C-alpha cells in the first residue's frame, strides 16, 4: 500500500513517469480479470486499455482511499458488466449475427498472450454463472476482499462466500476432469 500511495502522490504532483509503474504493476492482473469476465478477447483488452487511459486522465487529482488495485479491478469489472449488458441488448435487437460475423473473422493479433494454463482456467471459468465468475476473478485476480465484492454485487457477504465456494467446487470438477 505504501508504494501505491507514493505512486498516486507522484501522479498528483505531475510526475507522469509514475504511470508506467502503475501500468506494469497491474496490467497482467487486470488483463486476467477482464479475460476471465468476457469471452471476447479483444473486448477484454479494450476494457483494460479503457480503464488505464481513464485512470491516467483522473490521476492528477486522484485520491486513494483504499487499494489502488482494488479500485482498478472494480473499474474493469464495471466496464466488463456494461459490455456484457450491451452485448445482451445487441442480441435482443437482432444484431447478434453481425457480432458473430465479426468474431468469426479470425482473431487479429491482440495485446495479451495467454498461457496454456490461463486458457484452461479461463475456459473453466466460462462455465460458471456470471455472479460466481465475478466473485472468483475479483477475489483472485483483483485481490478484493469478500466484503467489497458483496458491496459491489449489492448482496450479503455470506452470499458472496457461498458463490466463491460453489465456484471453486465447480472449477475443481471441471479442471480435474480435463486431466
Amino acid at each position: 500500500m505504501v508504494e501505491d500511495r507514493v505512486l498516486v502522490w507522484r501522479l498528483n504532483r505531475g510526475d507522469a513517469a509514475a504511470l508506467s509503474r502503475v501500468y506494469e504493476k497491474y496490467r497482467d492482473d487486470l488483463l486476467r480479470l477482464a479475460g476471465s469476465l468476457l469471452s471476447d478477447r479483444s473486448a477484454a483488452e479494450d476494457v483494460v486499455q479503457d480503464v488505464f487511459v481513464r485512470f491516467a486522465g483522473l490521476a492528477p487529482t486522484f485520491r486513494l482511499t483504499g487499494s489502488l488495485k482494488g479500485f482498478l479491478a472494480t473499474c474493469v469489472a464495471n466496464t466488463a458488466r456494461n459490455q456484457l449488458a450491451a452485448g445482451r441488448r445487441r442480441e435482443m435487437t437482432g444484431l447478434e449475427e453481425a457480432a458473430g460475423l465479426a468474431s468469426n473473422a479470425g482473431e487479429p493479433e491482440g495485446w495479451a498472450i495467454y498461457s496454456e494454463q490461463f486458457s484452461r482456467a479461463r475456459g473453466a471459468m466460462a462455465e460458471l454463472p456470471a455472479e460466481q465468475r465475478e466473485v472468483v476473478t475479483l477475489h483472485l485476480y483483483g485481490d478484493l476482499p469478500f466484503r467489497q465484492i458483496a458491496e459491489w454485487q449489492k448482496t450479503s457477504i455470506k452470499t458472496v462466500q457461498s458463490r466463491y465456494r460453489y465456484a471453486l467446487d465447480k472449477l475443481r470438477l471441471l479442471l480435474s476432469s480435463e486431466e
Partner: protein
Amino acid sequence: MKPLTDIVRFIKGASIGTRVAVDRDVLQRMRAAYDDSSQGRMMEHMGRRVARLAVAAGVLIALGAMMSHLSQLAGGSVAWADVSRRFQAVPFFSVAIYMKQDATAEPTQMELWMSHEGRIRLRRGAQVVFAQSDRVKAYDVASGQPVEPDGLAWFFVEKIAQTKEFSLEAIIEVMFGGHTTEVTPLINPDAVISQDVVVFHVEPPDTPERVRIWALRESRLPIRITVWDPRDGKSTDAVFTYFREMPAEFFDPNAFETSRQDPRVDRQVNAVFLPSAQI
C-alpha cells in the same frame, strides 16, 4: 480430485504475457490522457505549492478525525491518547523504517530523525535528505553533492514536514493513510511481557492490511509500528529510538554541505550520523 487450494493456486498462477508494441501504444495513450487532463494542466501551472497545501490540509483533517476516534475507542489501563500525548512531549526521536515488498523480499531501509520543531533528516540509500516546512534538500553521502531526492524519501519527508507538528499521528498517517475505523488495545497474552508493553491494533477499512502499535506501559512511549498485508506479506516496520536531542546543525543542510566539502571528512558513517561539528 485436486484439493481446493490447488485450484486457487492454479488460477492465480495462470500467467499472461503482452505484446510490447501494444504496451507502448497504451502507455502513450495514458500519457496523452494525463497531459490533456485539465486538472493536470492546472496542477502544473499552479506549481507545487498548491499541491503541498492540499496534502497538508488532507493530513491535518485526517489527523484530527483519527485523534478523536482513537481517543474514544481505546480502552484499557493505557489509553491511546496517553501514548499520543507522551510522544508529543519527547524532544527528539529517530525511527528506522523497514519495507518489504512481499513475504520473502529483502527489506529496504531508511532512517529518519525528527526534532521537536518538526525539522527532519532522513537517510535512504546513499542519500541524506533534509526538510523543514516545504524546503527539501538531498545530498549524496559520498560526494556531498546536491541530488534530486529519492521518490520514497520525498513522500515521507514532505508529508511529515507538512503537518508542522511533532506527532505520532503524522508518522501513522504516512504509513497507512489514517483511514481508521477501529482501534483495540490488545494486551500481549504473555503476562510477563504485558506488564511492560501495551499493544494497539488498527484496522483500516478498505484494505486487509493490519496495523499494530507497541508502546511501553511505564513511559507511554511507542517503540514499534508495523503495517502488514496478509495477502502477500508486504510489510512496513518502524522502530523508534529516543535519546538526547541533536543540535540544530544536525538538521541543517548547509552545515552538512560545508562539512562534506571539507577534505578532512572522509568517513561516510560520520556524514550520515553525526552533526558536522562532531565529525
